[in-house]
């Protein structure tokens, strides 16, 4: 068990919308707004902030945000490697390491996404409706200008670019091995939608969903129906990390970072996008089993100690596999665990994604799950879990990922 000292003391966000709906505010202005709100929530001033932390696929460089926000000094600026979704908790961990080792005193972790101003994630950057060029050149091998592109060179020619298709591959195998069903995945989506219906921030708050709706939603990449896929959203959020000493003087109840972990199993690369050759035993998993063991050991806690969880939900099947990775149920039993009603805020044994998650609140690369983790332990969630003291937050699955365990003293 490792002693940690860093605390989460503030959370904030902009308005969350469907992708492309925020066109009049730039993505970096939205980041500034979320950072300002999180700092105000902490009872701090921007003059107190001396560090910024983010994770891959961020278009909003810390040095520019620091200048725009007038930070007196940027002592710590740090970013986690790809993939974007996997780094949210790792960025919190980096902020914690910074304040614990005196590199900075108040570090803000942020994420801002305005997909309409850049490109929509679900399109994978291609436009199949675009007219073919008048004089097309014959297709040929092109130079890969990065290791990422060289790796994706063995996926893209087969049409594997879309996340819904990539993550369908391990999920389909899980169904084959364990009999997991689309209806079980649908029950998870319906539960998160119920949580969103109670959350005024949630993009899908006013759009109730039944299991029948899920089953009737169009097939995107079998077994992923539309409602198995996360939202594509515009919005920004931020969290503030500082030392225990500094946290003691602040108005809000600090939330402790009990433990954090980051990583990927051997050969994982970019998961199903790049590498079909991970060990057979871990192909139909979220890839987080070893990481979870390290996390529990660091905190001196186990799955039974978790009162509420915010699990990265890019796709329903990836949440199901995380439930198994983290030991909330046995391998292969994620489907029946969901069927038991375990994930519901109201009486479930593991209330999960009490904000509605990326499936129903907003897709902010999972940093909104950290925000909700703090709210859940403060007692501020719109789907509160009484006396919750320990919250697990994860970032991504089936690709390199990270996780934090949060606690309330």
């Amino acid at each position, binding site marked *: 068990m490792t002693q940690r000292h860093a605390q989460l003391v503030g959370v904030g966000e902009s308005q969350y919308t469907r992708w492309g709906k925020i066109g009049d505010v730039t993505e970096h202005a939205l980041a500034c707004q979320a950072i300002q709100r999180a700092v105000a929530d902490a009872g701090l001033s921007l003059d107190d902030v001396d560090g910024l932390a983010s994770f891959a696929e961020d278009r909003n460089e810390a040095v520019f945000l620091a200048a725009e926000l007038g930070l007196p000094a940027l002592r710590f600026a740090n970013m986690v490697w790809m993939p974007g979704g996997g780094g949210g908790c790792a960025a919190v961990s980096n902020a914690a390491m910074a304040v614990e080792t005196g590199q900075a005193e108040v570090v803000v972790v942020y994420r801002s996404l305005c997909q309409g101003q850049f490109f929509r994630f679900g399109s994978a950057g291609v436009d199949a409706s675009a007219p073919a060029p008048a004089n097309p050149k*014959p297709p040929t*091998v092109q130079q890969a*200008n990065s290791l990422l592109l060289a790796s994706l060179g063995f996926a893209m020619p087969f*049409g594997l670019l879309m996340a819904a298709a990539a993550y369908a*591959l391990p999920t*389909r195998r899980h169904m084959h091995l364990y009999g997991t069903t689309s209806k079980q995945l649908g029950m998870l989506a319906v539960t998160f939608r119920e949580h969103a219906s109670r959350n005024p921030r949630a993009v899908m708050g006013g759009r109730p969903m039944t299991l029948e709706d899920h089953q009737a939603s169009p097939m995107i990449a079998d077994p992923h129906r539309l409602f198995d896929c996360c939202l594509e959203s515009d919005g920004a959020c931020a969290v503030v990390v500082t030392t225990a000493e500094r946290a003691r003087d602040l108005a809000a109840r600090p939330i402790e970072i009990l433990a954090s972990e980051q990583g990927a199993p051997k050969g994982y690369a970019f998961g199903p996008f790049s590498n*079909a050759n991970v060990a057979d035993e871990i192909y*139909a998993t979220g890839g987080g089993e070893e990481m979870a063991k390290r996390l529990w050991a660091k905190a001196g806690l186990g799955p039974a100690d978790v009162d509420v969880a915010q699990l990265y939900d890019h796709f329903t099947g990836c949440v199901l596999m995380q439930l198994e990775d983290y030991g909330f149920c046995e391998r292969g039993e994620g489907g029946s665990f969901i069927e038991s009603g375990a994930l519901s805020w109201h009486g479930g044994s593991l209330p999960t994604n009490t904000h509605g998650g990326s499936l129903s609140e907003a897709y902010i690369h999972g940093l909104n799950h950290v925000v909700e983790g703090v709210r859940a332990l403060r007692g501020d969630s719109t789907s509160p879990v009484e006396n919750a003291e320990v919250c697990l937050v994860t970032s991504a699955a089936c690709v390199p990922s990270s996780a934090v365990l949060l606690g309330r003293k």
Partner: protein
Amino acid sequence: MSQRFFPDGMPPPLADAISLPWWEAAAEHRLVVQRCTSCETTRHPPAPVCPECRSADSDWNELSGRGQVYTYTIVHRPIAAGQELPFVIAVIALEGAGGLRMISNLVEVKPDRIEIGLAVELVWEDMSPDLAIPRFRPVER
């Protein structure tokens, strides 16, 4: 030229000096995998060092092109203009490659016939005189 399954506008292979020989072999309709000449472990995609023994020495081992469906997804959204839908992305466990798998497509198959474990064989699609893509179809059609 072979039968065509996908339009010209599909994303082209992107390769560097490590992976280019794989595509050069493909252009000659040879499905190869990189093999460590020190410990004989095969690997894919191609990489500079053997992940098992860390030797940098390797050669290319030609495969039979037979295999089994390890997992798959039936995709209902196009990647390129003019693409027939749905199309099938599959992970193929390659025969004679020590359990090695590759991402590819299933062609000449009705979606309801696809299952994990389905025996498949290689079929080359010549996208141009310089580019051939290995796809797979059921052995029993």
